[in-house]
């Protein structure tokens, strides 16, 4: 399948922080979560995709068009929602809708009104006067109805209360199901990852750790409770504590334990956030 977004060996020096090399392909019908520690370069990477900054090396293409080329028409296919929208403070929700809606051919007024009602957003107050949670709700209500092929969301649920968070996640799932679309999002919220993401792209200190299919990632890690812990390292061992062993090469670990007649008392797949913590440690 031809990727809708393709990053190839992207590098960027930002003061004393080096982002990259990062290579990533986003295919239609997928939700990819960029996951990493604070300051790992996720937001900067999203801004590079939006051509808000210049790469030092590498190439980013959206629908086959280089984002840093003269032709900027690719932007019609992309909705970008930064973590904190800049330049919105002076405008009311109504103003922002009037600015944004005409720019998108598929703008969906029905969805917009539905989100405004569901999330209880005042449209007559200036954006800068709204609480961070309501600002985020309004930003999302101005993002989804654009119905672009690609949605790029930077921490879309970070400031939301629990009911709104669930509502927004349902809306995002519904939004994905309507057409062939793709979402890239950054999030630190395990429930968002569990519910939304198909793929995880892990980053640490500006470097790409790996691009994983979510279910394969969680099924690839297991915690074993052993009758006794061998002194030497076990094949596939990622960590150990007391008689607990975590492995990411299940077959090799189980073969070793069988060969050395070490009994397994119990075993359990790791939670997604445990796997991520291990990979980012």
């Amino acid at each position, binding site marked *: 399948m031809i990727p809708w977004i393709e990053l190839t060996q992207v590098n960027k020096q*930002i*003061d004393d922080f080096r982002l990259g090399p990062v290579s990533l392909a986003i295919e239609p019908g997928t939700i990819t979560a960029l996951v990493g520690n604070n300051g790992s370069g996720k937001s*900067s990477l999203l*801004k590079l995709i*939006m*051509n*808000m*900054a*210049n790469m030092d090396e590498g190439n980013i293409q959206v629908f086959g068009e280089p984002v840093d080329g003269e032709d*900027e*028409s690719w*932007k*019609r296919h*992309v909705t*970008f929602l*930064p973590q904190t*929208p*800049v*330049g*919105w*403070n*002076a*405008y009311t929700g109504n*103003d922002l809708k*009037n*600015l*944004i809606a*005409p*720019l*998108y051919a598929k703008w969906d007024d029905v969805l917009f009104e539905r989100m405004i009602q569901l999330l209880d957003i005042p449209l007559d107050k200036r954006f*800068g006067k709204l609480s961070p949670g309501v600002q985020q709700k309004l930003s999302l209500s101005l993002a989804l109805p654009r119905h672009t092929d690609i949605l790029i969301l930077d921490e879309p649920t970070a400031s939301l209360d629990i009911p709104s968070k669930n509502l927004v996640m349902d809306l995002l799932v519904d939004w994905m199901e309507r057409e062939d679309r793709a979402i890239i999002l950054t999030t630190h919220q395990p429930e968002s990852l569990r519910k939304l993401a198909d793929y995880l792209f892990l980053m640490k200190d500006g470097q790409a750790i790996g691009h994983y299919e979510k279910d394969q990632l969680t099924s690839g890690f297991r915690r074993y409770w052993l009758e006794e812990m061998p002194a030497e390292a076990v094949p596939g061992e990622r960590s150990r504590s007391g008689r607990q062993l975590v492995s990411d090469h299940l077959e090799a670990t189980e073969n070793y334990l069988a060969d050395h007649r070490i009994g397994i008392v119990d075993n359990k797949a790791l939670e997604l956030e445990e796997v991520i913590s291990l990979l980012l440690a």
Partner: protein
Amino acid sequence: MNDWNQAYRLAAFEIKASLRNLLLILAFYIAMSLIFMMSFDVYLEGDFKGFDIMFLLVFFMFPAWMKGKEFQMQKMDGNLWSSPSIIMLQQLPISRNTIVKSRFLIHAFCSFPFQLILLIAMPLMSDNFREAMTPVSYAVFVLMWLAISIAVGFMMAASEAGGNFRMKEIVLSFIYILIAAAAVYLLFPMLSGSGFIEWTMAIAVDWPLLTGVAAVLLMIAGWKYWQVDMRKTMKKTDYL
């Protein structure tokens, strides 16, 4: 939607959001300027040496300050300086060309009416000015000052694209600008024998056709140059 139509829509949108404040500030600046203009006759009689610099400040800086704080260039994250509108608009499917044009339209809206009032106030408030100018030379004089407004003043609009600056660079740039302005201000009377406004009056009276043509050329050059400059700045700036 072509670039100009969309630029006009964006400019109208921003102006509408700050119209009330903008009109209040405009009224305040006009009142202040007209009080200042009462000394125009004193300048033309040669008794107000600082008038030129004050007039230039009022003529160029008041329009730039007229915009609401939310729309002016400011320090963003890290070493990024920019107008927040520039960042917002770049995240939407709007070409850089259109963004540039919309910033220029907004600047024109803030500057031209105010500057025209200043220029119209001159013959109304000064007997010396009225006596020196014919209707034709006055028209040329107004045209020339509007050309100067575009050639120099639109630098303000172009500067909204911002850039990635360290504090040392900003301080140094500020010092260079001050030195350059002081040099021009001190050298100009020595070379021309008069103040800058007086000199522009003189060339409008003595060479109206040549001055008019030069003004139109200056307008076109300024209009084109600052648009290209702003596009280049937007392209090279990291809005991170």
